[in-house]
């Protein structure tokens, strides 16, 4: 029998301050740049036009640029897409988006005629065009926000039913942390916030919550056993006991995500990046956010000893290290 991380007794919670510092620095860096430079929304949310161009021969990017400048699309964004004959083109300027309110496909038609004039109809093809009018864009943005908030509320209610509120709150705070780290990651990686990325973000939240639930479920079980242990020790023991499972599950999930990232093509790549990062941040937050928060809540709002330990032998004094603050000394 191959065993990894079997019967470990790492004191995970002891490092919560270091972990918190690291994650706080990451979030401040990412969110800071987000606040300064703004969110990099895809055309689905802002309105605009996205076109994928395939050329017969590798084109001169400057030539595309000049053709578009000549047509009046100065703020069009041209990017290489996978191979050197494929490019994407984004037109997201406010004037162009406003022009799309009269018909979302107008800009795409103009760009297409400029490009076929410049390169000839046989040498350039446009296999993908996405055009979103400004009204649809703002509606999608609202819908995405509602979706994120609603999934939050729904899972909170579920956790409140299945666990007691202390666990639910800790899990939600950990999930909130994942939203912030993922947003920071999106910004630092210069990824666009698109509908698929929002879907990936929600999946990450589900995955992270999943992970927190597995550990909390073990905590719940260990607490019922009524050993003379502090919550601090129970948490550490639960994390250690679920460690082999965590490693194995995350490895398989990461393997699937890596396969997507490397082989599933350009369109799905941002989705795969978010998922891969989500696996990391989800695992991290289950251990270093959810657990310390649970300890903190427990110190603020201690419960009756009887509720902790159904067996009457337990006493309140058995909790030797009730808070992470005392633990790190």
């Amino acid at each position, binding site marked *: *029998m*191959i*065993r990894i991380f079997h019967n470990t007794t790492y004191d995970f919670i002891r490092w919560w301050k270091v972990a918190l510092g690291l994650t706080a620095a990451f979030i401040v860096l990412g969110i800071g740049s987000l606040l300064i430079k703004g969110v990099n929304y895809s055309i689905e949310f802002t309105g605009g036009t996205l076109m*994928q161009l395939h050329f017969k021969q590798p084109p001169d990017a400057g030539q595309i640029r000049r053709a578009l400048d000549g047509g*009046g699309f100065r703020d069009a964004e041209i990017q290489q897409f996978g191979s050197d004959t494929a490019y994407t083109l984004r037109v997201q300027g406010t004037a162009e988006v406003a022009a799309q309110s*009269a*018909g*979302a*496909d*107008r800009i795409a038609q103009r760009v297409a*005629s400029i490009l076929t004039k410049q390169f000839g109809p046989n040498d350039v093809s446009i*296999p*993908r*065009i*996405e*055009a*979103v*009018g400004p009204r*649809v864009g703002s509606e999608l943005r609202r*819908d*995405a926000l*509602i*979706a994120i908030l*609603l*999934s939050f509320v729904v*899972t909170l209610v*579920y956790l409140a039913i*299945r666990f007691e509120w202390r666990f639910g709150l800790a899990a939600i705070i950990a999930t909130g942390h994942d939203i912030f780290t993922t947003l920071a990651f999106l910004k630092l990686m210069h990824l666009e916030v698109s*509908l*698929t990325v929002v*879907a990936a973000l*929600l*999946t990450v939240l*589900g*995955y992270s*919550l*999943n*992970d927190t*639930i*597995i550990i909390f*479920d073990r905590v719940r079980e260990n607490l019922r056993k009524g050993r003379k242990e502090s919550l601090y020790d129970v948490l550490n023991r639960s994390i250690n006991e679920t460690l*082999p*499972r965590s490693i*194995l*599950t995350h*490895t*398989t*999930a990461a*393997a*699937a*995500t890596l*396969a*997507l990232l*490397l*082989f*599933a*093509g350009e*369109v*799905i790549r941002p989705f*795969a990046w978010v998922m891969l990062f989500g696996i990391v941040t989800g695992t991290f937050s289950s251990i270093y956010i959810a657990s310390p928060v649970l300890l903190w809540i427990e110190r603020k709002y201690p419960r009756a000893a009887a509720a902790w330990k159904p067996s009457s032998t337990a006493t309140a004094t058995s909790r030797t290290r009730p808070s992470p603050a005392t633990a790190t000394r």
Partner: protein
Amino acid sequence: MSLKYRIACIVALIAASAWALFPRTVVERVKRNDGYVLDTVRRVPLRKGLDLQGGTHVTLEVDDSKAAVANKSEAIDRALKVVRTRVDQFGVSEPVVQKVGNDRIIVELPGIDDPQRATDIIQKSAFLEFQITDKTNALDRAIPRIDAAAKALAPVLASTKGGTTAPDTTKNALQGLFANDTAKKSPKDTAGKDTTKGKTDTKKDTAVTPQTGGPFSKLIQQGQFPGEYYVAQSDVPTLERYLADSTVKAAFPPGKVLRLAADSTQFGERYFRGLYVLDERPIMTGEYLTDARPSTSPTEGTLVEFQLNNEGGRRFRNETAKHIKDYMAIVLDGRVMGRPPVIQGAIGTRGQITMGGQDLQSAQDLALVLRAGALPVPLKVADSRIIGPSLGKDSIDQSMHAGIIALVLIVLIMVVYYRFSGVLAVVGLSLYVLYTLAALAGFDAVLTLPGLAGFVLSIGIAVDANVLIFERIREELDRGKSSRLSIDEGFRHALPAIIDSNVSTALTAAVLYQFGTGPVRGFAVTLLAGIVASMITSIFVVRTFYTIWLTRASEQQTLSI
């Protein structure tokens, strides 16, 4: 539950899944010799989304920029019928036309070659009117008032001209392309015999005298019969601005409307567009039209022949009888088609519209939209997505590639780490794949690219339940329990965690389904199907495998896990 029933359940599930995925005979549109016909085909009942098979997705909404629309929802309902008829006649396999929300229509056309043509056909208002041209020179009398109104507008125009004319440059260039053909077109437009044409032309040509003066009148010159004027092609954008202005409109002669011609005409080196002064009340509209067919004639090029129903024919006959020797303009969506012909005698139920120099396809498209009827409200594109078929195929190939690699990696990890139990998990996993696909086929879900990614991802997540159970069994074995007891306890203790984690993910997927559109919805559906299938396989199927193993193994045999 006894072992027999468990096995029976699994076999039944496999059979049901295989049946759900088995190619079945369905009736759908298929392409045969350039046309689309309804036919029965056998195919696997898993539908590919537009992003995987290529196609066009268009969301249309009411265009109220020109005139306010009181009841959008009701207008969209009526427009939906017209759009559906047009799409059906256009001929694609499995088109989707549906109303979303209150005021939008989604049109999905899988695998079409010319998306621009498709959106043009869908959007065309196709409002057909027959109007008599003015013969009282009403416009000439109104010119001073119109000029005065236009003068007030002129400075505004001059300052915004740069911005407003820019979008029309491509349009002008396009019309320039057609111009050679349009110059050759015959001015004869409906079935009345028009033999006097040559004579009137030469007579009236002398009347083409450029009018100079005010900002409006300097743009137009008298045409070849009363009510006809010409505008230089380069002046058309300016003129359209004038025509759209409400104060200019107020100065128009009462009971008359001004309409531009659809095509331009060449005189010498320059291109002109006709401008016609018409009686506001049409003598006939397209609502009485029963049929329209494209046709060609050696003298008139492409044309559309139409037929009116009996009531329309009677009216048309009465009205045209009143207007013999008058010119009748055929106005489609506010543009005059061809040159208005002279009415020679009463016209009955048949007529024709000449298409200028346009090709047969334009005639086919016009005939199609005329048959389907006019749109009750103008529609505009709110968003559109066009995916080429080759791109869709690439996406499928790449996701398959990624899926196979992910599967191989996961199988390796599980078998190396858990040995015999890992093999059981892998068998469970292959059933999981089967069940998920069957569930997708059963609910007639659409496979999209994010959906495929979600599927690959859910394979990774599906092993989580197995891992939880196996780790738990190992713990129980460590405590010195027997294989049988460890398996029992392992499943029992792992269950709450599996249920909690899957339910919370399922809730997220449900929210995504509710609020997501198109591809994201596809992702949510695969995720939901995956969660259900993974619960069934990990809790029920793998458990049964263990039970089988326990009945065959001797008591002392150690569990390979």
